[in-house]
């Protein structure tokens, strides 16, 4: 994973956060709910890892367990070389001794304090006290990092959402924690500001080379920000990879569907293909030449995943060659930089995305070609 270091390259990769078999259940009125079911992951030093998943998948619970705000039932958590939680060894280091920085979804700006007092709290009253003389310098440095140095004496309630978000970040950074935890910090901002803050945040973290655990349900945010993404669903991590791999080579149908848009075609591998490592699958569209991964053999049922932007759609061309199918444009949606088409092929429907300049009218007869190299084959779950 050396390729994804933003920090100082070390000969031996140092793991800043290690979570082993973490399990957390909640007791609700209608019974026990397992929010996190035995997940494991690592954040090497300087790496930005995102826990991505729909609401209720357990990502925030995981983050809160790391921060020490929830007590898990089982598992182990190491921050740096310190064991901060272990069910077996009966260790539970309280939140105030874990030395992590955290930005809450609501920002949790204390409304009775000024910007300065908010940022100064950890080093003035909290567990990371520094000399009185140093407090001012440290706070100003932190505020400078987030570009708020001129707002020092402003009462916190008079800040805009974006400014509160920055204060919250400055407060988490002022004591120079080794690990930064971010709980959907951008979800309360409007779309334009969110995009700006996304880039700003990434640049800041690049500069500081701080290890980061980030939680979001926004796949685009995760793809833009992360070094690695762990996609969570129903308390489990389905896949953990760099963003490019998550998008191009999903290993689970849920991951393929949650990150980006995807067409799913169910089929069965009928025979070996002409080329090595390919196969021919019988699908509702017809026979399709697919790459044949090692764990799939002839006779297996497969889910064939195709990204909408990977198919080519030709007008009036009669289908020719492998994986070409005749279809009809059923519906189209113009979304600015591209056009989304719904194309009917026999009893099936495929979603396709084409550049905005290509304009196909509804009911146009088309031929759809799917390159074998763009097809992702998964075992149905």
């Amino acid at each position: 994973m050396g390729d994804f270091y933003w920090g100082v390259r070390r000969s031996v990769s140092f793991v800043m956060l290690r979570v082993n078999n973490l399990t957390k259940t909640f007791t609700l009125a209608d019974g026990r709910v397992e929010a996190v079911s035995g997940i494991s992951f690592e954040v090497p030093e300087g790496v930005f890892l995102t826990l991505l998943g729909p609401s209720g998948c357990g990502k925030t619970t995981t983050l809160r367990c790391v921060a020490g705000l929830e007590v898990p039932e089982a598992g182990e958590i190491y921050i740096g070389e310190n064991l901060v939680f272990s069910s077996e060894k009966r260790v539970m280091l309280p939140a105030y001794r874990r030395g992590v920085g955290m930005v809450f979804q609501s920002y949790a700006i204390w409304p009775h304090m000024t910007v300065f007092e908010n940022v100064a709290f950890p080093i003035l009253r909290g567990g990371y006290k520094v000399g009185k003389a140093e407090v001012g310098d440290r706070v100003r440095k932190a505020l400078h990092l987030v570009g708020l140095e001129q707002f020092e004496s402003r009462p916190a309630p008079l800040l805009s959402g974006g400014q509160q978000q920055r204060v919250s970040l400055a407060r988490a950074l002022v004591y120079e924690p080794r690990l930064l935890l971010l709980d959907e910090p951008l979800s309360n901002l409007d779309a334009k500001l969110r995009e700006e803050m996304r880039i700003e945040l990434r640049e800041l973290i690049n500069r500081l080379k701080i290890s980061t655990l980030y939680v979001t349900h926004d796949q685009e945010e995760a793809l833009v920000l992360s070094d690695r993404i762990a996609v969570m669903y129903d308390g489990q991590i389905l896949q953990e990879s760099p963003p490019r791999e998550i998008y191009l080579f999903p290993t689970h149908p849920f991951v393929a569907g949650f990150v980006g848009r995807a067409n799913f075609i169910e089929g069965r591998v009928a025979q070996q293909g002409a080329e090595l490592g390919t196969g021919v699958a019988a699908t509702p569209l017809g026979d399709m030449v697919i790459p044949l991964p090692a764990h799939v053999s002839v006779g297996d049922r497969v889910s064939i995943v195709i990204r909408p932007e990977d198919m080519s759609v030709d007008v009036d061309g009669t289908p020719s060659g492998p994986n070409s199918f005749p279809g009809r444009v059923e519906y189209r949606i113009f979304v600015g930089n591209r056009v989304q088409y719904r194309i009917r092929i026999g009893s099936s429907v495929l979603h396709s995305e084409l550049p905005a300049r290509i304009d196909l009218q509804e009911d146009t007869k088309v031929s759809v070609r799917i390159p074998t190299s763009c097809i992702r084959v998964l075992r149905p779950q």
Partner: protein
Amino acid sequence: MSLAATRSATPFDGWVRRAKSALVELDFLNGLPLVFSGIALSFVLFLVGFVLYMTFVAGLPIEPDYTLDNWKRVARSRMLTQVIPNTLIVGFGTALVATIFALPLAWLLNRTTLPCRNAFITMMAVVVIVPGFIKAMGWIMLVNDRIGLLNRAIEGALGMEKVAWTVVNNPYGIAWVMGLMLTPTMFFLLSGPMRALDPALEEAAAVSGGNHWVTTWWVSLPLIWPGILSGMIYIFMTAVSIFEVPALLGAASGKVPVLATELFYAVRPPGEEVATIAYGAAGVYGVLIAMPSCLALYFYVRLLAKVRHYEVVTGKGYRPRDIDLGKFTWIGMVFVVVYLLLAAGLPFLVLLWASLLPYLQIPTFSALKNISLYNYDGLLAALGGARVVWNTLVLAVSVSLLVTFLSFMVSWVVVRTRFRLRKAMDIVAMLPHAFPGLAFAFALFMVALVLSIWLPEISMRGTLAIIVLANVINRLSYGTRVTNAALFQIQSDLEECGKVCGARNLTIMRWIVAPLIKPSLVFAGVWTGLLTFQEVTMALFLAESHNRVLSVSIWHLWSSGNIGVACAGAVVMVTIMAFLMSMTLKLTSGKIKESRQLG
């Protein structure tokens, strides 16, 4: 590595596991509130149980001799023919009068563009502050077939021989005075639903072609009907447990007995003659008042929860449209002013007038000649000297501090911990709302009596402490409502963030929680102090020679016939209250709307 904070992850079985999860939050910070609130609430429960127990023993509770005689004797008394009918007339009458005044007031001051609305709303709170027995004294002098100033004025104006109206010795008179007195409570109860009305519903009616009046009558009024109903239940509950007004207006003479006065006189018979003291019967009266109240309280709390829910859902972003009364504005103004005059203005003016005269006369030019400050001369001595002033001060300040502290402790457990009994604790904290203060005073009286027999050296009889205790218990439900709300409004994020910043619990308390809830605590404290200062029933019930407070002294002056001096005392008392009230408003910057549950 801190092992103190270590928690086991292995599953426990049954009871052990439950006990463990109950105590999960039990570190020092939560332990302290748990201990204090536990003691306070257990004491409340103990007193309630004690009253029940009293009803089944023949004599003093230390000579257990179980019997149903108390219940039988009460059933055989004038209970069914007089007391219950009177109590019902007073209860329903009060609820009716309060609603008739409060409904238009709530609408006028919340949903119309009436001028000076905020000033009027503040005045509604001021009306609460004027003690009920002082208002009753004022009305006795206003409407009375023998001495009533209004009667005389009407006789003079219309040339009639005698106007027979009277508020004295008449359950309807009691209902009238108490209705005026409890109107502000009803007003604050109705203001919430009134403001929370979803304007879209009204706008829909308007779009359908209904004008303001049609909309108000057919859409708005039916929508707040649940609010009106729950308010009336609440007022009924409050009215049947009030002692001071029925006592002054007819029960002391024995002509209009109600449950609350029967309870009082069963233990503290009027007059100096030695009478048999019926402790058990008093308990029966207490239970009879409390039972329907507890039931009503249950429905009230449920209704309230729904109303709050409703407020949260639709309260966002909408500003209910205020109706411009146009050329009818003056009618609205007259209504509000007339109410304020009837509820506080006239009674206070008549007291002021009476305090300046040697005997009560109609205000005429000839009467003006008799005006003097005679009644104020030596007032302090008449009231009982510096001791009474000191007692009153100690009472108000200590109750205010204790209630604020204990309410905070209870709310901390209820809102901030996962203690298993927290919901039950919240309900117990509400009990003093349903159980009349008089019943608690009675229970304390009995406990003190038993204690004085068992342990004469720590006798609590006739001490100020016992009055403090009664008031603390009585005000606990109001106090916890304020502190609950204050703690609820602090998002848990704010504290968790403190933890992540490395702050320990006490640091978080000191620098984050305390500053955020300070305004609410100050408000609860000052308001509790004011209500305690004007309270008379419990203080009177528990009074002996050494623990008199100001309100008790005024009461005694009035009942012994020193009308002028009593009025002077009342005027002084109201003046002090007005001064304290304006200080409160300054301190809390007009946050008076929280006083909706003033009881």
